């Protein structure tokens, strides 16, 4: 039935190095907390089913789909979003995406970058197959993935 009882809970979460304390409805998704409460709109939403990966962020260093995590589950955690990837300068990975034309509309790009960045943290010079496996949870409808895979492999080799 509708009208689920809504309770509020205080969450304290570090996002891109800044700590925020917010009272949020317990059913609020992490992605909506980031986008609506913190106005970090770089993290996107592309589906209702955890299938597309556009909302990928790092939760304590691990890539997660932020549409499949409640904001209250991030209490006490450190979150990194695409806005926290670099500062004014592009990171080598971001630069490599541009150099290899690995984005068109740019809607999937933040999620792609976060999944790829997590891969590179673990495996600094991944093979093409490693990249494909790491990005299989991220959908892109513009590029066909070829240039994305190339961009990540190149970033790993430091040839961006």
């Amino acid at each position, binding site marked *: 039935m*509708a009208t689920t009882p809504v309770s509020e809970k205080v969450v304290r979460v570090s996002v891109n190095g800044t700590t925020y304390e917010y009272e949020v409805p317990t059913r609020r998704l992490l992605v909506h907390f980031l986008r609506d409460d913190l106005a970090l709109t770089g993290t996107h*939403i592309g589906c209702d089913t955890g299938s597309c990966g556009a909302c990928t962020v790092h939760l304590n260093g691990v890539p997660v789909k932020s549409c499949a995590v409640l904001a209250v589950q991030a209490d006490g955690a450190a979150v990194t979003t695409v806005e926290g990837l670099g500062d004014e300068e592009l990171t080598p990975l971001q630069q490599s995406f*541009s150099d290899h034309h690995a984005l068109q509309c740019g809607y999937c790009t933040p999620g792609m970058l976060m999944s790829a960045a997590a891969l590179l943290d673990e495996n600094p010079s991944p093979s093409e197959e490693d990249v494909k496996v790491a990005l299989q949870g991220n959908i892109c409808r513009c590029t066909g993935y070829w240039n994305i895979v190339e961009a990540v492999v190149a970033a790993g080799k430091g040839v961006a």
Partner: protein
Amino acid sequence: MTTTETETTTTPTIQKGYVGQNVPRKEDRRLVQGQGTFFDDVKRHGMGYVHFLRSPYAHARIASIDVSAALELPGVYGTLTGDEVAILTDPFFQIAAEPGANVRDYALAVGKVRYLGEAVVAVVAETRELARDASELVMVDYEPLDVVVDARKALEHDAPVLHEECGGNVSYSGVWEWGDVDKAFAEADHVVKISELHFDRFNSTPLETNGALVEYNRGTGQWTLICNNQFPGFAAIMMAPALRVGTNKLRMITQDIGGAFGNKITTHPQLVALCLLARKLGRAVQWTEWRTDFHQSMSHGNERWFLDTEVAVMADGTMTAFRTKALDDAGAYLRYEPLGGVIWSQVAPGMYGWRNLRLDFTQVMTNKAPCSPNRGYSRMQQLWFTERIVDVVAHELGFDRVELRKKNYVQPEQMPYETPNGCVYDSGDYPRALDVVLDLIGYDTVEERRKDAASRGKLLGFGIGSTLDSGTNNFGQSQLLNPELQFSGNNEVATAKLDFFGEIVVTLGTVPQGQGHETTASQIAADILGCDVDIIEVRAGHDDYWNSHAGFSGTYASQFAVTGLGAVKGAVEDLAHQMRTLASMVFQCSVDDIELAEGFARMKENHEAALPFMALGAIPNMNNAGFPIDPPPMNARFVFRPQFDVPDKEKKFGNLTLTYSMQIHACIVEVDPETGVYEIVDYAAVDDCGVRVNPKIVEGQVMGATAQAIGAAMFEVFAYDDDGNLLTPNFYDYHVPHTLDMPPLKTAAIESPSPFTSLGTKGMGEGGGGGIHCVSAALQDALMTSGRAIVTSSHNPYHRVWEMIRHPERSREKVEVVSK
């Protein structure tokens, strides 16, 4: 993983400066930093979130609607029902002549629902979760009706009728015939008959769904819609009459758009509902379509049957004629349809020299989501059909598929080539393109690879898909469907100005969704102004408050490289002339003595006499005293208009599009005969879109379109059960290709400049259908030694391949050869 080659047929018309270079995209920096602005990123104080309650039935009468319980829920701002919509708006204008003209389509269902997922009630609340909760409190009493989901059954006399006022389910029918078809068949040595071919239903599923933030200004009676509609001119002509206002009361704004592919043209019903809600509630309302709602209701690609096809073939393999009955399934409403009923004829004979064609086109409405443009709109179906019949002819008569194509392709010396229906293929060398793609994929090794696959228990198949990407529509073709329509030609706008401190600002009428318009427009502008590409600011996207759009402005139908860049060229050349004129006034010389170079307007013979752009911008704007005549305003607006005539409505004859890009794809598949599971193990694509302003961007379009075609060929389908339930309503069930699904890809480009465009460019980006065609062809080839099944569907998931292997007779009985 990818390899690229480039060839040029003739010298491009422009080959200097930035044009032709892989200039890095201006769009990228903000997008990789998460700083793009998509419609869903914009918020207003106190805005309400909209949720559409949708029909759980494919066909039902709405007996009653009770919203009272929803309205009592704290935090709910209001609702909108079909009854209110029917009072406050007029039905949407219909493109169709009778009988489709009688369809009464509103922003919400009125009296009846005609497909599962049709919006019935809109609920607005403080949060999106609350709006959704409240919608569950709305009581709708439905009386279910019989359902028809099969276009063939929709034609039967006792079929359930969706729109009673149309007197049946047909929205449009017409016979399209050119040449002397009967004579060609009488003279043919062979007639190949194919009783049934089916192009399946899918769309491009852009990752960003539809949506808008809508505000109403009570003082001016104007709505502001921050949205992602990709063809605001079309939306306005649909919306304004429905809302009983002028188009000046609709300020539509677009910014970054997360992919569109044609699927974001027909959002006018939802946008009208939002306008009504914003006015009714006196607050901004925001709607972001749920993924499931997109799948259930938005812009499916046209599903089409080709029935009783016959092909006339001479003994030497020359194909002289075809005739067929096309049955198009438009879904429940005509929101851009029945334009699909004419768009196909831009490529009526495909890439082939057929001079005698008859296509009996009927479009019906069924209890499925409405069809609207999808990348390759209506041409992809026709091109798949022509490719299919070429491969079936080769298969049945024993012709070599490569030689049969080369023999029947329109030949390079025939360019520009007028098709039997008056379309003009502007340039290209199709046989050569085929050679290039065969070379890329290693055609000479196919038989060797076939043996190797066989040794591993696999069936190997090779297939070719040839396609055209017709671009820059002549909207006069709409009159071939409905002679009363007052649309013809085409246009696009750009403005260019030199601002106070010498900033160059170019504004586009186009509505890009990832195609890199800011970058390519800058390349054109910088070459004309003789300046660095980085100093050009391009404002892409739409805003009615900018004076940079006309009725056909938007991004659709493969035309930016012609219309958009044509407008940029015109506006910037005008600005350049103004800059040179001003400099000539300052230096008191002839305008011909002035050149723009290295960021200055300077005398050709004396480079010391030079004005920086900053000075040129400042003079008319801030420092204009003492000029005996007005200095040029440093502000230009250009409307690009391609030359078109209204087609001959009686003969259905005329030039319907300005340019024809060409793509030939080829692939190799390996099929497991035990399971039907197959894999694309090699893939190549060659593209010819004339002059490429930015080759990397062009290749990106080729890649993306290819990926979508592979998805449509193997995985993606909007499948319905007999009750009209969509079985693939989200990305969980509707599988789009992922990284691991992609085959290795080789690409190549040929440049055959268009003789009809100012830059030698052609619109491109919708040529990916080649992927569907070549997968169909490769599967048919693979099954050659396993029952000789004919591939009769565009969508071939593993279970369908398994069925073709187990029951080849089911497709074999659909084909017949009659020889003299």
